[in-house]
């Protein structure tokens, strides 16, 4: 059933200088400002890499996506990444149809997103 709110949990990813943020529920025009505040605080705390666990995400509207439109480049400029992981199949299908999968980095699981960060870090260390 559709819910009116979203919940989030934050788990540190110390080896990646970042956090794993699990989003649950629905993100719409009403609560997108709340999502932006959560994300901004995490970035201001110095987290460079953010993995979003979206496995429990019921719904996200353009207002929610707008938050990531704003923050994605900002995080990248600071040498970090915002990675989308474990998006439910029906959501991913529509994202693909709309071309949003070309805009952000998507991973089937959180573990694969973490492996990507590990490989990026080892590449940077070898440079």
């Amino acid at each position, binding site marked *: *059933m*559709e*819910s*009116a709110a979203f919940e989030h949990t934050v788990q540190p990813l110390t080896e990646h200088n970042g956090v794993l943020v699990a989003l649950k529920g*629905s993100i*719409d*025009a*009403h609560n997108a400002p709340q999502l932006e505040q959560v994300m901004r605080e995490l970035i201001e705390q110095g987290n460079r890499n953010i993995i979003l666990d979206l496995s429990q995400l019921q*719904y996200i*509207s*353009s*207002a929610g*996506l*707008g*938050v990531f*439109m*704003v923050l*994605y*480049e*900002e995080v990248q400029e600071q040498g970090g990444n915002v990675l989308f992981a474990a998006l439910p199949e*029906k*959501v991913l*299908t*529509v994202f693909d*149809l*709309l*071309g*949003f999968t*070309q*805009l952000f980095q998507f991973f089937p699981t959180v573990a694969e997103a973490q492996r990507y960060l590990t490989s990026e870090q080892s590449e940077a260390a070898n440079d």
Partner: protein
Amino acid sequence: MIERQIKIAGVPEELAKVRAFLQQTLEAAGLDDEEIYQWIWIVDEGCSNIIRHAYHNDPQRFIWITVRITNERVEVEIQDEGEPFDPTQVPEPDLQLHRRLRKKGGLGIYILRRLVDHLSYEQKQHPQGRNRLILVKQRTYNSSTIPS
């Protein structure tokens, strides 16, 4: 044909009510999960746009949403009494540029237009009438039988 209607106030807090109404109505009519998800997204964007741009979050103004379902298609009509805004006239955004420019808004109409098969808009200045946005989408083969 099944026809259901809901009226909401022009504030974003009401969007969850619209989504729950659609979920319930479309599920009862036998639409599959993916179709329901797309319709929820389409109508949420249509209403969000009216709430933000035409009503400026005014709880004293209203939106009327009517869903009509047949075996072949779903039609949703969204009526409002705000300043007319024709979504058919909005140019398609360049998504990459949108992200590079860090634009927060402006994707709702794009989403709505891309996900429906047909859309039409009829504007009428209040109090002579209401603006009417009509959205149509064919049902997928798997869901195309209304339960008796």
